[in-house]
C-alpha cells in the first residue's frame, strides 16, 4: 500500500481527496491529510454568508464522518513544518514524522498585507479564515457598542468586495478603498466598474478609487487611513483584502523551486521540481501564474489524481478564468478575453442601461464571426449561453449585437437556440468540469432518472451553481428525447404536481389526508411536503379552517401562531387596514402587559406580541376575542394585511377613501388559504404611501377610479406589481382581484408567491388580463363562485379553537403535566424582554 500525504485541507485539498476516493484504485492507497485550521475544509468562496446566518458547519465541504467513512486519516490543527525529500517524510510542528510515496502540497495562500506603516494596529484584520471572521465580528460588536460604525476594506477586487459585503452584514458602514481607478481591475473595464459602483453605492456602501494609503492613523488603535494625496478617511476598523500570497514556506525550505514572487513551480502535470511532490491550488505557480479561482484548482486536483494512478492527463496550456458570481447583491460575470489583453484588433459591443443598472460588453473579431470574451454587470442571466458560444467557438448570429440585446426579430428563441445543439464536449459546469456529453450520458445509460440524480452522479451545479438552469434544460430535453415525461411531483408520496392534486381533490371531493394518500398516493405516512400542501388545497377547495385536521398543517397553522426563535409564539390580531380606535389600543396594551409580552409594530400596520408560551396562547386569545379582536392569520399561507395610507378621509392630496377600501378588501379575503402568503395595499393617490405596488395586489386611486396592480412583492427578490386594469370602480376592482387570486390559487406551484407565479405564467400579464378581464378561458364564472364560497364561509379559527375543549388540548406543552417548558430563558431588552441568544 502506498502512502499519499496531502498538506492542506482547503477547498482544493478536499477536492483532491474527493476525486481520489472516487477513483477505482483508491483502496491501494493510504491517504493522510493535514490541515492547520481547526476545522474540516469549508467553502471559502461563500465566506461572507457566515455573517448572514450560516454556521461553520453549514459552510463545511463534507460531513463530519466523511473522512472516516472513506478511510482518510485527517489531522486538523496540525501544521506540517518540514519535508525531508531524501527520507520521503513530513514532520508536524511537534516533530512527529509521517512517510509518503506521493506528497501533495495544497497549502493555499494567505492574505497579502501590504507593508503600510501601522497595519499592526488594533482594529486591522484580514479576510481569509473563519477565525479571521470571528475576530472581526468580535471587534465589530465592541465598535457598535461604543457607537462607532465606520469600517474600510482595503482592496476593491473580488475578495475585497466579498469582504465589504461581510462588513456590511456586520451592521457597519463599509468603505471600499482601491488603489486602481476601477473596481475588480483584473476582470472589469471602466464602464462595468462604474455600473457596479453605482449599484453597490445605492446599497449604502462607499467606494473610494485611485486611493493609495500612506499610513494608518491612530495610536494603538486604528483611527483612519492617510492617503498619499493628502486626503484621509476616518474609520474605526480596517479589513485588508489586497490580494493573496501563496503559502510556499515548507516547499521553499526543502529546496523545491519557487517563483521570484512566490508560488511553488509546477509543470503541466502539476509536478514540482521533485517528481514525487505535486502542488495544486493557490500555492502552485503554473505558466508563471497563480490561479486564485476554485475551478482551475479543482482541475489541478483531478490531474494529480490521474497522475498518481498512472494516467496522462495534463493541465491545458490556456486556463480559462471566466467567472460568474453575485457580489453585494449584484450579478457580475466576465469570460474569455474580457479586457482585450491580447491587444488584437477587435470590435467591442457595449450595452449600458443606467436605469436598470445593467452593463454588457462583448468582444468579437473584426469579421464578426467569433466571440472572444465579455463582461456582464447587473444581469448575468446570459452568461452560460455566452460562455458556451465563446468556449465552443460557435458561429455568431448575423448581427452579433443580438447576443446582448436579444433577438429583436420577435421569434423569442434563446441565444443558444436549442441546448441540445451544443457539441458533446461543451463544458456546462466549469467548477466541476462536467460536459454536456456527461450530463446526457448518465441519463441515457439509466444512471440518472431526474435532475437530482444528474447532480449527484456528475456533481454538475454543485460549485457556484451558475450552470443549474442549463443542467436542468439539458436534463429535461434528454429525458424528453427518451420519451420520459418530466414531472414536478410534490414528493415521494404522490406522483402528481400541485395543480393535478387540486383537480383530483375537487373532482373526488376528498376531505381527509388519509383518503387522498390511500386512494391516490404511494402509501406510507406522507411527509412535511405533501401534508401542508394538501391541507392548503383542502382549505381552498372546501373553505375549511386550519382546525379541521391539525396534524397535517404546517407547524404555525397547527398552533395558529408563529413559532419564534426559542419555541415561544407571537400573537397578531387582525387590525384591518391598520385602523384601530384608542380604546382598542388600550385593550391591546393591557393584554400585552398582562402576559408580559414583547410588543412591536409590524410592517403590515398591526401589533405583534412575542414570547407567548404554548400554554398561554388560548388565554391570550380568549382575552383578545372578548375585546372584539379576531385572528390576524399572520401564521398562515393566507392573506396577511391590506396596508393603507390615510387617503381622502384626512389627506389633502387623497383622491379616494383608501382606508375604507383596504378594510373592505382585508375583511373579504381574510382567512383564505393560498399557495403562499398574500399581501395587499391601497393608496389614496399616486404618491403611493401604502407601497401598494410592492404587494400581491395593489390598488391606487387615480382620476376616474382605481388602478389595479398585481404580482408584486418585497422579500428576497423585490418585484413591482404590474398594471392589470386602469380607472375601474370599487366593484370591478373586487371582481378582478377575486378572479386573479382564485386563478393563482388553482395553478401556482407549492409555496410560489404571485410574483414568481406571474413571472412564469405563459404570456405573462397580457395572458392574465385575457383570463381575468376578457374571460378567455371561460372560467370566470367558476372563479367568481369559488371565491364567493370562500368569502361567505369565513370563520375565526381562534374563536373555534377556544370554544372547543377537544381543540384546546393542542395548546399545552406537556400532555401529562400543566407545567410550562422550563428550558425557556428570557433576557431584558430596552425595558422589554427577548429570548437568550442561541449558543
Amino acid at each position, binding site marked *: 500500500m502506498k502512502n499519499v500525504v496531502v498538506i492542506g485541507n482547503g477547498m482544493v485539498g478536499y477536492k483532491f481527496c474527493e476525486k481520489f476516493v472516487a477513483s477505482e484504485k483508491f483502496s491501494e492507497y493510504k491517504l493522510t491529510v493535514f490541515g492547520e485550521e481547526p476545522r474540516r475544509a469549508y467553502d471559502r468562496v461563500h465566506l461572507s454568508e457566515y455573517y448572514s446566518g450560516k454556521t461553520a*458547519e453549514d459552510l*463545511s465541504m463534507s*460531513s*463530519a*464522518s466523511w473522512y472516516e467513512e472513506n478511510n482518510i486519516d485527517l489531522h486538523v490543527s496540525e501544521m506540517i513544518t518540514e519535508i525531508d525529500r531524501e527520507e520521503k517524510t513530513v514532520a508536524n510542528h511537534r516533530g512527529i514524522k509521517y512517510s509518503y510515496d506521493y506528497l501533495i502540497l495544497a497549502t493555499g495562500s494567505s492574505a497579502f498585507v501590504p507593508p503600510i506603516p501601522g497595519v499592526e494596529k488594533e482594529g486591522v484584520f484580514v479576510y481569509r479564515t473563519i477565525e479571521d471572521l470571528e475576530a472581526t465580528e468580535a471587534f465589530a460588536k465592541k465598535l457598535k457598542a461604543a457607537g462607532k460604525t465606520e469600517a474600510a476594506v482595503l482592496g476593491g477586487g473580488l475578495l475585497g468586495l466579498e469582504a465589504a459585503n461581510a462588513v456590511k452584514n456586520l451592521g457597519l458602514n463599509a468603505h471600499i478603498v482601491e488603489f486602481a481607478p476601477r473596481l475588480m481591475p483584473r476582470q472589469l473595464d471602466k464602464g462595468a466598474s462604474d455600473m457596479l459602483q453605482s449599484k453597490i453605492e445605492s446599497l449604502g456602501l462607499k467606494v473610494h478609487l485611485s486611493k493609495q494609503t500612506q499610513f494608518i492613523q491612530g495610536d494603538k488603535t486604528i483611527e483612519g487611513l492617510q492617503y498619499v494625496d493628502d486626503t484621509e478617511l476616518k474609520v474605526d476598523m480596517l479589513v485588508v483584502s489586497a490580494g493573496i500570497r501563496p503559502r510556499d514556506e515548507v516547499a521553499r525550505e526543502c529546496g523545491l523551486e519557487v517563483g521570484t514572487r512566490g508560488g511553488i513551480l509546477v509543470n503541466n502535470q502539476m509536478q514540482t521540481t521533485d517528481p514525487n511532490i505535486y502542488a495544486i491550488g493557490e500555492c502552485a505557480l503554473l505558466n508563471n501564474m497563480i490561479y486564485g479561482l476554485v475551478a482551475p484548482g479543482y482541475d489541478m486536483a483531478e490531474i494529480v489524481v490521474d497522475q498518481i494512478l498512472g494516467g496522462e492527463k495534463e493541465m491545458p496550456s490556456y486556463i480559462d478564468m471566466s467567472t460568474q458570481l453575485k457580489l453585494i447583491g449584484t450579478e457580475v460575470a466576465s469570460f474569455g478575453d474580457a479586457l482585450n489583453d491580447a491587444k488584437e484588433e477587435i470590435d467591442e459591443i457595449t450595452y449600458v442601461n443606467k436605469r436598470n443598472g445593467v452593463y454588457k460588453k462583448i468582444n468579437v473579431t473584426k469579421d464578426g464571426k467569433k466571440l472572444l470574451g465579455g463582461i456582464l454587470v447587473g444581469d448575468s442571466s446570459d452568461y452560460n449561453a455566452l460562455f458556451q458560444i465563446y468556449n465552443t467557438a460557435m458561429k455568431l448570429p448575423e448581427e452579433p449585437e443580438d447576443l446582448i440585446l436579444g433577438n429583436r426579430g420577435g421569434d423569442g428563441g434563446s441565444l443558444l437556440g436549442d441546448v441540445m445543439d451544443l457539441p458533446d464536449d461543451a463544458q456546462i459546469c466549469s467548477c466541476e468540469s462536467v460536459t454536456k456529453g456527461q450530463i446526457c450520458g448518465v441519463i441515457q445509460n439509466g444512471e440518472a432518472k431526474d435532475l437530482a440524480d444528474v447532480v449527484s452522479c456528475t456533481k454538475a451545479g454543485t460549485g457556484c451553481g451558475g450552470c443549474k438552469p442549463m443542467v436542468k434544460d439539458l436534463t429535461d430535453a434528454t429525458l424528453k428525447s427518451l420519451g420520459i415525461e418530466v414531472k414536478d411531483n410534490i414528493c*415521494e*408520496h404522490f406522483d402528481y404536481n400541485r395543480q393535478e392534486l387540486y383537480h383530483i381533490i375537487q373532482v373526488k371531493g376528498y376531505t381527509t*389526508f*388519509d383518503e387522498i394518500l390511500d386512494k391516490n398516493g404511494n402509501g*406510507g*405516512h*406522507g*411527509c*412535511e411536503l*405533501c*401534508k*401542508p400542501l394538501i391541507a392548503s388545497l383542502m382549505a381552498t377547495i372546501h373553505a375549511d379552517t386550519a382546525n379541521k385536521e*391539525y*396534524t*397535517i398543517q*404546517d*407547524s*404555525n397553522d*397547527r*398552533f395558529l401562531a408563529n*413559532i419564534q*426563535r*426559542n*419555541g415561544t409564539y407571537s400573537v397578531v390580531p387582525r387590525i384591518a387596514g391598520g385602523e384601530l380606535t384608542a380604546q382598542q389600543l388600550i385593550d391591546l396594551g393591557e393584554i400585552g402587559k398582562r402576559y408580559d409580552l414583547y410588543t412591536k409594530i409590524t410592517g403590515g400596520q398591526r401589533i405583534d406580541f412575542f414570547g407567548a408560551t*404554548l400554554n398561554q396562547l388560548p388565554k391570550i386569545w380568549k382575552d383578545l376575542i372578548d375585546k372584539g379582536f379576531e385572528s390576524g392569520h399572520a401564521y398562515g399561507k393566507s392573506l396577511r394585511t391590506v396596508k393603507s395610507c390615510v387617503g381622502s378621509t384626512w389627506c389633502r392630496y387623497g383622491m379616494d377613501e383608501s382606508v375604507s377600501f383596504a378594510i373592505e378588501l382585508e375583511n373579504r379575503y381574510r382567512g383564505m388559504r393560498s399557495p403562499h402568503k398574500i399581501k395587499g395595499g391601497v393608496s389614496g393617490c399616486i404618491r403611493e404611501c401604502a407601497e401598494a405596488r410592492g404587494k400581491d395586489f395593489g390598488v391606487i386611486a387615480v382620476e376616474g377610479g382605481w388602478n389595479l396592480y398585481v404580482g408584486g412583492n418585497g422579500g428576497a427578490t423585490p418585484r413591482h406589481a404590474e398594471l392589470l386594469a386602469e380607472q375601474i370602480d370599487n366593484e370591478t376592482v373586487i371582481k378582478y382581484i377575486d378572479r386573479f387570486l382564485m386563478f393563482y390559487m388553482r395553478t401556482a406551484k407549492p409555496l410560489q408567491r404571485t410574483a414568481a407565479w406571474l413571472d412564469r405564467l405563459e404570456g405573462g400579464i397580457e395572458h392574465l388580463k385575457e383570463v381575468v378581464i376578457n374571460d378567455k378561458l371561460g372560467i370566470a364564472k367558476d372563479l367568481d363562485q369559488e371565491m364567493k364560497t370562500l368569502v361567505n364561509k369565513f370563520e375565526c379559527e381562534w374563536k373555534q379553537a377556544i370554544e372547543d375543549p377537544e381543540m384546546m*388540548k*393542542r395548546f399545552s*406543552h*406537556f*400532555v*401529562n*403535566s400543566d*407545567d410550562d*417548558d422550563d*428550558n425557556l430563558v428570557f433576557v431584558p431588552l430596552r425595558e422589554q424582554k427577548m429570548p437568550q441568544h*442561541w*449558543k
Partner: protein
Amino acid sequence: MEEILEIYKSTALENVTTWFEAAKVSDFPKNGGACIKYKEKQIAVFNFERKNTWYACQNVCPHKMEMVISRGMIGDQNGIPKVACPMHKKTFSLENGENLNGDLAPIATYPVKIKNDIVYIGFSD
C-alpha cells in the same frame, strides 16, 4: 447549552428498567405528536396511527437546542418513519434518531408500549 443533550441517551428495549406511564392514548393526536415530562426530561411521543406504531424521542432539537420536536410534523422517507422539527425542518429518523437531511448529531430515541389504552415510555433510569 449543549449540556441539555447530555441527559438524553437512546434506550434500547432490552435495557429498559422503568416503563413510565405517560398518558392515555387519546391524549395524543392521531398521526401527530405531543410532549410528556419524565423527571427532568422532555420526551416527544408520536402516534403513527396509519400503521398503529408509536415512537418516542428527545423533545430538544440538537440544531438550536429548543424544546420543540414534539410539535413537528411526522411522516416517512423511503419507508423510514421521521419527524421534521418545526423550527428549520431538520428531519430525524424515529427508528435510530439519525438526522436525515443534514449532519446534526442523532437524537435519542426511546421504546414505547401500549397497554390497556395507556402509553408507556421505556427508560433505563
